[in-house]
């Protein structure tokens, strides 16, 4: 297996699917010549041409709608929303249109649409370029939501998303495109709704999504030195959610921390905590600990921004408390 970056894994997934299926295309702002603002797709347009890797005006709602219309009529668009914060502009197209068209038509119309976008702070980009809004989309029936945390997952989940007959929103951690990881040469996909135990453990379960998986693994490493064995579970998709794996781990360890970079209140941590509590209540030593972003707009100043995002230290502290080590 080779080691490649998360960005390369994404490009590979797209290139393979573009090659495999002529109905696939990529559309968004600066995706072609510039290869996206994050340079992740650099080179794609050279292989597939500007008819399949398409630069758009700055019209998120418009081109998401066009993507949807294309999806309803035989194509498989991959729409690029540069920053997750701009999802605010496409909520109608995604939620009132794409998510509902299959149901509203009694199963006759389909919208095999993929939206790739980002989440995550600490890029010093301030309040309008740092949000993690995946809770919103996860709330909406008809949508699926994938949150890859490694190059391997990023490639496999994106390929699955493209082949799925439903609208799927894939959130990528924008700080993570350079993260390296092992990815096999051959073709593979990762089924939705299957959590991945990123590290097995016995004493405490850390359920972590996307950007927070790295922090959770770091925390697990630190905890190991103190003799606390942490299991790190990555749901990989919030919809569908692999409740079973989460609950099984909770039953085993009796102590659970849920970490997600979205806002804590009314966010993903609340749902995961509730699902785990409902399924493992009588096995839990203590209530599930939630760790999400501080409930403030993300500030620009680095000294403030870093306070708003969960990190390994916060996870370690929560784990110690849960395990009665303080």
């Amino acid at each position, binding site marked *: 297996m080779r080691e490649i970056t998360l960005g390369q894994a994404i490009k590979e997934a797209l290139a393979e699917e573009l090659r495999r299926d002529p*109905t696939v*295309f990529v559309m968004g702002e600066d995706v072609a010549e510039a290869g996206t603002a994050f340079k992740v797709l650099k080179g794609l347009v050279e292989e597939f041409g500007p*008819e399949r890797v398409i630069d*758009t*005006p700055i*019209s998120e*709602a*418009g*081109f*998401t*709608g*066009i*993507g*949807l*219309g*294309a*999806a*309803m*009529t*035989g*194509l498989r668009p991959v729409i690029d929303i540069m920053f997750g914060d701009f999802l605010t502009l496409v909520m*109608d*197209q995604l939620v*009132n*249109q794409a998510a509902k*068209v*299959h*149901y*509203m*038509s*009694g*199963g*006759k*119309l*389909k919208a*095999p649409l993929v939206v790739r976008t980002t989440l995550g702070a600490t890029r010093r980009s301030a309040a309008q370029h740092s949000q993690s809004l995946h809770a919103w989309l996860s709330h909406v*029936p*008809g949508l*699926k939501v994938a949150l890859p945390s490694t190059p391997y997952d990023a490639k496999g989940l994106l390929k699955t998303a493209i082949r799925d*007959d*439903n609208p799927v929103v894939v959130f990528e951690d924008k700080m993570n495109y350079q993260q390296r990881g092992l990815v096999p040469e051959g073709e593979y996909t990762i089924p939705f709704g299957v959590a991945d135990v990123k590290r097995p453990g016995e004493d405490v379960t850390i359920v972590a999504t996307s950007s927070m998986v790295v922090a959770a693994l770091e925390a697990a490493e630190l905890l190991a030195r103190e003799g606390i064995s942490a299991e790190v579970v990555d749901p990989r998709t919030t919809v569908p959610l692999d409740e079973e794996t989460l609950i099984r781990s909770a039953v085993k360890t009796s102590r659970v921390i849920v970490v997600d970079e979205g806002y804590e209140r009314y966010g993903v941590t609340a749902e995961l905590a509730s699902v785990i509590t409902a399924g493992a209540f009588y096995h839990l030593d203590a209530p599930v600990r939630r760790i999400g972003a501080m409930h403030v707009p993300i500030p620009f100043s680095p000294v403030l921004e870093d306070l708003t995002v969960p990190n390994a230290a916060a996870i370690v502290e929560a784990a110690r408390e849960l395990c009665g080590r303080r």
Partner: protein
Amino acid sequence: MTEEITAQLRANPEPWLEAYRRMLTIRHFEEQVDDLYRSARMPGLAHLYAGEEAVAVGVCMALRDDDYITSTHRGHGHCLAKGASVDRMFAELLGKEPGYCRGKGGSMHIADQERNNLGANAIVGGSAGIATGAAFSARRRGTDQVAVCFFGEGALGQGLLYEAMNMASLWRLPVIYVCENNLYNEYTSYRETTAGELTARPRAFGIPGQEVDGQDVLAVHAAAGQAVERARRGDGPSFLVCHTYRFYGHHVGDVDRAYRTREEERAWRDRRDPLRLLAGRLLEAGVDPARLERIEEEVVTEVRNGVDFALQAPYPDPSEVSQHVYA
């Protein structure tokens, strides 16, 4: 013009008799919907298309079966004009299982996949992207299909339309924007909500815009035909503003209509009824009045049978509630 059209009619009245049938079907359908509402046999509300029949029929007559349309909350007319059957439409409006959407869509979401009607949309302007995307798709897939986006003049208030038109123009997509200007955004005159000239809007994006008498099915058909040809040739999008009027209220429950006068309504009904205008022309062109009467009888029967079918049809099984969330 009038002479030319009379000549056209006289030479071959058949397509216009078919147009008459479709328009009349819409009219009777809508009157029946109103009756279902008043007699409390229909759940929810519906927005009737009566008065605007010439627009949907004139445009759809210029389309092929495999061309796409997107429709609006006032969508029964578009759906029928594109060829849907009356019985399954009634069934949908009553939330019954044989409805086009198994009763799950209802009046505001009727879609007819078999005739590439991508569906009514209850978000004003919400289908501007979808129609443009269908046109994009036709082009990418190498077909010569076109897509028609129907919308009320109220949708001119929605930014999405401009975003979509800009891309349609840039990429010369085979899409036709059909603005049905029935003078009202719900209960407010469009003059209070719409600055500037209507056709200047598409022109600002390099799209030709044309005003059409929306009560004259021949005029609508002629304008739509040109736009369709242009689109099929690969010359890009067009925009039609069809001036029209809804004979009923904004929806079936809008009965006092304080925002407009009874005189205005009477004037349109008396002098600008698209059905009477077409009937007059057909007769003028020498069509036997008996043919029109026969068509009316057939339509009345079809609508009556359709509503009976729907009333007797079963509701979907409760288990359907969680089907079709995901494909």
